[in-house]
């Protein structure tokens, strides 16, 4: 018996995965960066911005920063679910957020706010179901499916709204919400935090969240353990749709207007926040707090670039480069960690 447990202990130590804890030198650095880099970079960025950038720490600027960060941040938090399942991203958040914004203002103008919420909710569910069923049950590629639903969504929006901008009454509840603050924080930032808390709970404390993570780590073993994996993917897309809807509401309320192209670039900026936060595009690895941190990082970076009067073109170049860097570190960290 003693001999058996000895050979077993040896076998445990010998398993190839054990070696991955032993990575040294530059390899260890890459693994560290892929995992914890965001914490270091965010701290450096905040410190540097406060020290070197004039006007960064002003209340006006921080309020502004929150206003800009909130809609994209909310979308990113929801989309984290899809990324964790290993299905890359949901491009259709661009159409979904715009649809929610246009519906909120146009329908509440025509009828009332409650009806507007109800219509937006139904539309969000439709998007989530179409994306989720195509990807989850039919195993279609998420990038292509959501690219197609973006096209469909924007097209329908153009037909319904005629492609023109809609405005809310300047004294309506939407306008009030968009300009109100809770202490120094605009309501949009409060919504961001509430969404973050709710989704953190869903992802880390519920059976559904567990299945999303388990599916991301190993789809096959999750399926063979008796899980309806199609349902998990549909669920992840539905969470993303709900978040895109809330993000669209917040965005529309901020300016009290909405138009079909209002959320252009949300797909990519949300993905940027998710990836920079350290959620892996390979699935399985990631969390809501990480995405929140990524949102903070990307938003501060854009804000600092604006304050430093760097042109929008260069901002795009900077965010693009950041993504290439983050995705490369993610892939490298995964490869080095595997060896």
């Amino acid at each position, binding site marked *: 018996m003693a*001999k*058996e*447990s000895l*050979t*077993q*202990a*040896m*076998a*445990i*130590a*010998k*398993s*190839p*995965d*054990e*070696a991955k*804890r*032993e990575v040294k030198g530059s390899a260890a650095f890459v693994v560290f960066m892929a995992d914890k880099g965001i914490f270091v970079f965010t701290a450096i960025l905040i410190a540097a911005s406060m020290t070197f950038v004039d006007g960064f720490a002003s209340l006006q600027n921080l309020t502004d920063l929150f206003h800009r960060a909130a809609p994209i941040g909310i979308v990113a938090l929801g989309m984290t679910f899809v990324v964790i399942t290993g299905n890359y991203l949901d491009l259709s958040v661009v159409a979904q957020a715009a649809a929610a914004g246009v519906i909120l203002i146009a329908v509440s103008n025509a009828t009332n706010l409650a009806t507007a919420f109800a219509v937006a909710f139904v539309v969000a569910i439709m998007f989530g179901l179409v994306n989720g069923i195509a990807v989850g049950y039919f195993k279609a590629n998420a990038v292509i499916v959501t690219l197609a639903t973006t096209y469909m969504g924007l097209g329908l929006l153009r037909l319904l709204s005629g492609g023109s901008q809609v405005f809310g009454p300047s004294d309506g509840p939407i306008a009030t919400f968009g300009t109100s603050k809770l202490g120094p924080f605009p309501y949009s930032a409060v919504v961001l935090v509430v969404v973050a808390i709710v989704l953190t709970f869903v992802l*880390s*404390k*519920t*059976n*559904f*969240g*567990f*299945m999303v*993570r*388990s599916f991301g*780590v*190993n789809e*096959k*073993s*999750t*399926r*063979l*353990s*008796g*899980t*309806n994996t199609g349902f998990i993917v549909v669920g992840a897309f539905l969470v993303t749709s709900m978040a895109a809807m809330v993000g669209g509401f917040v965005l529309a309320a901020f300016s009290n207007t909405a138009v079909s192209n209002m959320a252009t670039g949300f797909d990519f900026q949300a993905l940027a926040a998710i990836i920079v936060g350290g959620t892996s595009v390979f699935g*399985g*690895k990631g969390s809501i707090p990480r995405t929140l941190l990524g949102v903070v990082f990307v938003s501060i970076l854009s804000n600092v670039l604006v304050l430093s009067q760097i042109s929008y073109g260069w901002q795009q170049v900077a965010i693009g480069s950041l993504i290439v860097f983050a995705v490369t570190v993610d892939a490298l960290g995964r490869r080095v960690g595997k060896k």
Partner: protein
Amino acid sequence: MTAPVIEARSIIKSFGGVRAVDDVTVTVAPGEIHAVVGENGAGKSTLMRILAGVETPDSGDVQVDGMAIENSAKSSIDAGISLVHQELSLVPEMTVAENIFLGAFPTAGGWTKTKQMKKLAADTLREIGVEVDLDERISRLSVALRQFVEIARAIARNPKVLILDEPTASLTPAETNYLLEMLQRLAGKGLAIIYISHRIPEVFKICNSVTILRDGKLVLSDSIESLTPEKVIEQMVGRELLLDASKRRKVNDTGEVVLSAVGIKAPGVNGIDLEVKSGQIIGLGGLVGAGRTELIRAILGADLRTGGRVVITSQGKKHSVTSYLSAIRAGVAYVPEERRTDGLALGMTVSENIFLPNRKQVAPRGILSKAKNDSFAKELSEKVNLRPPEVTREAGKYSGGNQQKIVIAKWLGRKPAFVVLDEPTRGVDVGAKSEIHKLVKQLADDGVAVLVISSDLPELLELSEIIHVVRDGRIVGSLIGEDATEKSVMSLAAGEKLVGA
């Protein structure tokens, strides 16, 4: 004795503090077939990867013709060492000829010289005595032919030393014989061959000398004449094998029918009826590729079934199995063949892996409680004797045997009525293997219906009360476990004509 063509001296290689290869010296002369044997994890494959330059040793060097070679895959190939990997590494979408010259296409100014490539490929195949269409895609070939193409690929590089890692693992006896003769022919032409195998009879059939490894150390290296099969096994294992096989299970026909599968058809499965009763262990024997895994996956609905009806009776109720989920709901536990990819999420903890199929029981309201999960998982891991029973440890950090125990543990939580185990102890060390056998027998004794697929004949004989032998997607014979022998199972599995070979 001629001067050695390859000489590996005092090779040491550690992984994470444990020496996988510990001061091993191997020398092989031209025309010699040198066997390297040892249990799983003895360090054979690591040593071979070092010889082929794929892995860098911590110390020691490899010499070819007296010249030390630099440690890289390319310099090993240039020096004349060719390794035929255990896992086949051919590109399924490419043709035989293209695969043989993969990575070394004969070219002229950047253009592939197809004619010359085909001619060289044909020559190589003729040299090893295999006939196969050069333009056939690899994906259309049988496992054996793929193995031969793999060898052709190694031979096409004109090696001085050919290393084969378990080349007969998935071959039938006739194919194995063919391969062994091929190797003898190649050795006759002066090629030095290093032959890694678990199968001792093969070693005694063709090898001139044997090196035995145990726990990374060189135990013995000697010419074949001075050894006997018993001595080799004794040295490999280093301890007495408990031969539980003498205690065969008697047929227990008193339980109620739990699995009733009628007329099962699926790709690779040609109409099979199967019945398993409560308290029984039924074995499915056969060669790799006979259709056993396909059969049970079709029964359970894990893969598409094209015909047949499956009914599972649990807790007095009949459940018709129409999908994998319905099978699980009916009380099925499935321990799949590929535990690392299908059985477990290696990146998740033991506790999380166990939670997955038991989530409705542990967290009925859908809200997780880590403490509750951990204690639930702890209880089950103790039941299966997981060592150490640290449920917060990643499953991937456990050895194969322990991983398999985790897979079993996660199903035990559901108190299944029907347990299917596909190759339950493949790649598992001896100690864990006997523990898993004990668990399986205990399950049956507790009234569970058990179906075991195994290519490990002693295991199949030890566990099963009835052995159904599958060949070409059909049950070709059923043996009473007590009366079955390795030979009787094998002759059914391989088809009568091949038995004598």
